[in-house]
């Protein structure tokens, strides 16, 4: 520990400066007070540009709400979902947002357990992202189903009619998986916040802001920072991290089973669970960078979110990109190797569209799934390749552009899986096409509005970085020990 990796142009290699300290933050020399001040400054009264941004997100959210209202009023048929494509944009969005929600827990729990120190500066935001993304994802089943006012029937609750849910249905597993993940993420998020909330409470009390103090006080759970409390807190945090870790893998596995458990060609495959988990981490990490790189620039947090952090996340992105790319290839191979005409047909259809001999004498037609497929391949397999170069990884702007491409690509990956398979199932007479309508686009935009509204509110009301862990990363305030490495 206590090392900073920097590319030294004269040396032409990475030089490790042992005196610079912590790899996650460049702030080992900062005092506790400085960290407090800088972090709390982020929660100061926002500038007008903040409100402008918030307004934009709220408008997007409003568009989504309006679209949904129209859909409920007119009927689900107002969307482009149809027969035989009974799942479309909404389920795509559901899987997409659940995927986004994976990075937070991965960073905060898995990397905590594996002691990856660069997580310190970003895990709080990533966790908040997780919670909000799962919220967003959780809305989509409601938007999607035919009778949303009866959605509570999906929950097993005792009732006088003795009606029970079907435990064989992957959709029900989904209900359990997502609600479990949501509750654990919320608790983990709140647990991690306790010491920081205590700081906020104390600061508010010190500045005489009674309302704020009143708000933060119950959330801080009477945190005093005593040694006793710290011992219990760290133990509890560890247990939660251990509990949350399997969820990172289980949730998206179960989501993938919505597809893999069915008999639809292109869905019915065993590769889906690892493929989806890798994809979720891939998209989640990309979203973390998409969100944090602008925040870093706006608040000037280069000392906290160092290039090293961005590089580390980028390496994870490269790794998961390879897994995802491998999964794409494996799907095609298995499609061919299975010998099943249905599988072969769907894997021909995804990249190339209708085969000429399939139709009477029509021509090859490029359709929505083909656009989705090639966007997916480009964004998820080809676009991350530049990240192999250290120079690109070290350039936040380049990384940011690539992560945006990955987000687009991952959305289309989900659409590619959902949309294309349903268009060409077993019975050719019932093949169909799918194009979204304005309500689906509206709700999709609305979901981004919902997510970013929540995140924007979060960024100004709770510390977006874990203050107490940042302090952990610095040299403790000891006499004559300002320069001493913390781990010695």
């Amino acid at each position: 520990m206590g090392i900073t990796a920097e590319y030294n142009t004269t040396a032409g290699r990475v030089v490790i400066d042992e005196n610079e300290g912590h790899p996650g933050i460049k702030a080992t020399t900062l005092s506790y007070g400085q960290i407090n001040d800088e972090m709390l400054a982020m929660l100061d009264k926002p500038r007008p540009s903040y409100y402008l941004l918030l307004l934009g997100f709220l408008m997007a959210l409003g568009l989504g709400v309006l679209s949904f209202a129209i859909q409920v009023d007119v009927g689900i048929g107002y969307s482009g979902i149809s027969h035989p494509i009974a799942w479309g944009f909404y389920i795509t969005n559901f899987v997409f947002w659940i995927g986004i929600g994976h990075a937070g827990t991965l960073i905060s729990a898995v990397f905590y357990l594996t002691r990856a120190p660069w997580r310190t500066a970003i895990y709080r935001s990533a966790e908040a992202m997780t919670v909000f993304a799962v919220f967003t994802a959780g809305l989509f089943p409601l938007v999607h189903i035919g009778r949303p006012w009866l959605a509570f029937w999906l929950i097993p609750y005792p009732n006088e009619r003795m009606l029970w849910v079907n435990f064989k249905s992957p959709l029900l597993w989904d209900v359990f998986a997502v609600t479990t993940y949501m509750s654990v993420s919320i608790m983990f998020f709140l647990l991690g916040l306790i010491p920081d909330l205590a700081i906020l409470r104390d600061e508010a009390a010190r500045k005489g802001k009674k309302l704020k103090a009143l708000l933060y006080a119950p959330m801080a759970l009477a945190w005093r920072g005593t040694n006793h409390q710290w011992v219990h807190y760290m133990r509890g945090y560890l247990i939660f991290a251990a509990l949350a870790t399997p969820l990172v893998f289980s949730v998206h596995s179960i989501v993938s089973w919505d597809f893999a458990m069915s008999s639809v060609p292109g869905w019915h495959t065993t590769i889906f669970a690892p493929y989806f988990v890798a994809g979720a981490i891939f998209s989640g990490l990309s979203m973390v960078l998409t969100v944090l790189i602008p925040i870093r620039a706006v608040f000037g947090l280069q000392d906290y979110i160092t290039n090293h952090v961005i590089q580390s996340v980028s390496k994870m992105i490269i790794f998961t990109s390879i897994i995802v790319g491998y999964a794409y290839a494996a799907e095609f191979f298995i499609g061919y190797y299975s010998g099943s005409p249905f599988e072969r047909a769907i894997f021909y259809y995804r990249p190339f569209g209708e085969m000429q001999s399939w139709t009477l004498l029509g021509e090859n037609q490029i359709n929505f799934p083909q656009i989705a497929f090639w966007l997916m391949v480009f964004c998820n397999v080809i676009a991350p390749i530049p990240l192999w170069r250290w120079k690109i990884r070290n350039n936040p702007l380049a990384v940011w552009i690539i992560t945006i491409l990955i987000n687009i690509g991952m959305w289309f990956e989900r659409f590619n899986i959902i949309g294309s398979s349903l268009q060409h199932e077993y019975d050719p007479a019932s093949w169909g096409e799918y194009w979204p309508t304005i309500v689906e686009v509206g709700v999709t935009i609305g979901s981004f509005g919902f997510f970013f509204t929540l995140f924007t509110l979060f960024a100004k009301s709770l510390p977006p970085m874990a203050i107490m862990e940042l302090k952990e990363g610095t040299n403790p305030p000891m006499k004559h020990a300002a320069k001493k490495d913390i781990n010695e």
Partner: protein
Amino acid sequence: MKKGLSRRNLFKYMGVGGATAVVAGCEKKPEKLIPMLVPPTDYEYTPQTAYQYMTTCRECDAACGMMVTTREHRAQKAEGNPNHPVNQGALCARGQASLQTLYNPNRHAHPLADGKQIPWEEGMQQFSAIIQAASGAIAYLGKPASGSEGDFVDEWLQAAGGGQRFKFNLLTQKSQAEANKIAFDHADVPEYAFEKAGVVFNFSTDFLENWGNPVENARRFTDMHVYKNGRKNKFIHISPQVSLTGAKADRWIVINPGTEGLVALAIASVIQKENGAYKFLKKYLQAYSPEKVAEATGVSAEILSELAIDAMEHGPLLALGGGNVSATDQSVETLVAVNILNAVSGALNKTILFSDQTAPESSTHQDLTQLISDLNAGKIKLLIVDDSNPVYALPPSMGFLQAMKKAFVVSLASQKSETTHAANLVLPALTAYESWGDAFPRNGVRSIQQPVMSTVNMFDARAREDILLSVAQSVNKKAFSGNSSYLDYLQNIWQKIQRKVGDRRNFDSFWISVLENGGIFEKPKFIRASLNRRVASVKLNDPGMAGSDGLTLLPTTSLLLGDGSGANKPWLQEVPDPMSQIVWDSWMEINPDTAQKLGINDRAIVEVSTPYGSVQATAYYHFGIHRNAIAIPMGQGHQHSGDVADGFGINVMELLPDQMDKAGSLVFVGAKAKLKLINEKSYTVNTDGNARQLGRDISAATTVEELNHPEKHSAGHNRPVEFYPDRSETAGYYKPYRWGMTIDLDRCNGCSACVVACYAENNLPVVGKIRTAIGREMSWIRLERYIEGYGDDFETRFSPMLCQHCGNAGCETVCPVYATYHNPEGLNAMVYNRCVGTRYCSNNCAYKVRRFNWFNYEFPAPLDQQLNSTITTREVGVMEKCTFCVQRIQGAKSDAKNLGRDLEDGEVVTACQQTCPTKAITFGNLMDPESKVAKNALRDNTEKRDRQYEVLAELNYKPAITYLKKVNTREVVGHDSDRHGSQDPEQTHS
């Protein structure tokens, strides 16, 4: 004592008042119903109970017997009358949809004078005034009316001071009667005994669609054509176009348009040479030897001789001629040629049977030309038109509309049409469901038509005959003395009939038995006919329509819309045409080779112009059409027939000349069309996702050869063996019933009657063209049409696809709320109320037969009165699908329970099975080894074993529907290379 009403009295009054309200309400106004808690025992009907009434379907001239189910005094379902010898319980799609003639929102609701609503009294006064003013210059233009109505109208015209009756039928068989008169001295249409034939040559008729009685034709044809006892009789389609009828053929011989007669004579000449029959024809037929006609017909001499050998070896032959596609100016000669072929091959009096009485003469289209010139000359002052629609149906080049405006036109129609739109006075008539009548479609068949319910209360209409009767009595006191209504007149006629048939009961009991039975049906008597020598003087010329000076236009009939009268019925518009799978539209069939030469893509908009007019039609690639011809179906392109019909498709009659053949029938084929590309894409909606099944054997076929040598091929399709025990071994399942179905694809001809029957039985909403375009149609049966092969050697297959009620269903396990589950009788039950609409079941259904309610669909009044009251309608967000008519199963079960026994085979009949003219569908209990369905479905049936298969059996969904493969007499070329289409795509591509 308290003042006023005591509690006891209040209840008394309430009881009395309530009962009277109900009785009064049910007599006249069937739309507002208040059922009593405990109905009185002497009440005339029981709520929720179905009553069946026998009547006659009047949608076309075939006049099938019909049995109408009414509940709460509303007709809810039409079925064929099982006693009726013509249709024997089956109905076609149009017959099923006749309910929408009754409940059509576009019916005339009030009398109209020049488009303005007037009271009935005023209308009747106007009518009698104009009759008096016309003083005999009256023309009555109506349907041919085989029953008493014709005599009634004739008598009425006399009473009204004179006039002439014109019988109008666009799809007339007049030319056929004329040809039979020339050849056999019988101006009649004979009965075609398909079942006695060994081989059928079809010269362009559409006998499964509109020619003769399609229901009867389908049944008798299937009896002849179906695979049994290891063999199958051949059906050869000799025509420039493959219609639904041609799609069933074992072989299609492409001939040049208009050369049916030459082909018939060429075949006859080979046969005559062999068997030496009818010596006087020897020289005549030599002029038409295969070598001589080969060029004109486009069929090589070898094939013609081959056909002749076929006819001789596999006879008796049945050669059929007629229909639109061969209706050239030589159509009488063509039909004579077909008669010669029948006679020479010895089919006469074997497969072609002439009745001992000839049918009454009917008017010709030539007579209408007379009518038009009379109208133009002002010789006719009053024109009365019934429900027929000559303004739409006749070619505009005849100028009927302009001529009609010269006279005062009274329309006695129930449905809105182009003709009523142009009429001066519209007096709304009742439909066949609400009025008395009869029909004698052929000798020995007397079918009664009785009102099965009171008038639909939205419509202030009166029976056509009653209007005529009362108006006649107001202008002529002596008219129809003793008849206060048409029923009296009808009963008088039936009294005569009673005497004729020798029934000695009193009339009342005779009358009741007629109504119960649906009519009187006697065995037909046939006489021997012989070929007249004068046929040798009938000359047939090469019409030369295959030349390159444009494409010959073939106006084909529409299976669903008929001559256009079906276009205002939502079901018939919504159900896809089985051949093209196109809905709510018309199209232009064109051979892909021709189209590509002209640079016309599939679904491009083309301007079709003939010297008589031009229309814009959608090109539809069809292998089954001659390279120098195009075909456009009739029936669409309405302008004033109500919002269901108006604005959809085109009217092909606009392209036809005002030309008659020798029998005075309209010449349909003769115009040459020129095409001009207008637009690359048209908004034409078809329901098939893909026309080819890519070797997936959804609609499987085998050959006679293969069936007779099972050892050479893989024998049968066994159900997959499974590790887990079958549900039948699980307690609580399948005891005593496991409902199942078999569908014999060798019998199915794609007529779509089952689809319409399902709409009627199960309250399926109609969604319209725009919603069908994005797959929102609600039909529980998808009549799949697959095309195999390429070019002239292609095959069309039909298979009805409906919920398979799988024993191991994909939909059941994935529903999170148990809205769909496997019930103990093997039904894949759907609990509408529990459904939240995740649509996962639809995704996981390999057969894609689940339909989702994307909207709250409306049944515009009074169509809502047709809804089957034993089941519900479904709200938005709910999945639905075929239930195997669970309401019928439950009804039959409760009836059986009352008798203290289990159900017997054949007691549950699903709506689709009931109406199938060819009996392709069998339904019943699979657990009863003696049931018909078990005998068809179980693998120990040695006769059927090699044909049984389950669709997509490899998925192990264990469907309850077993299909029996279609049997071909030969392998279709191109079939084999296509079989591997999906597995090795690149190979078939080249």
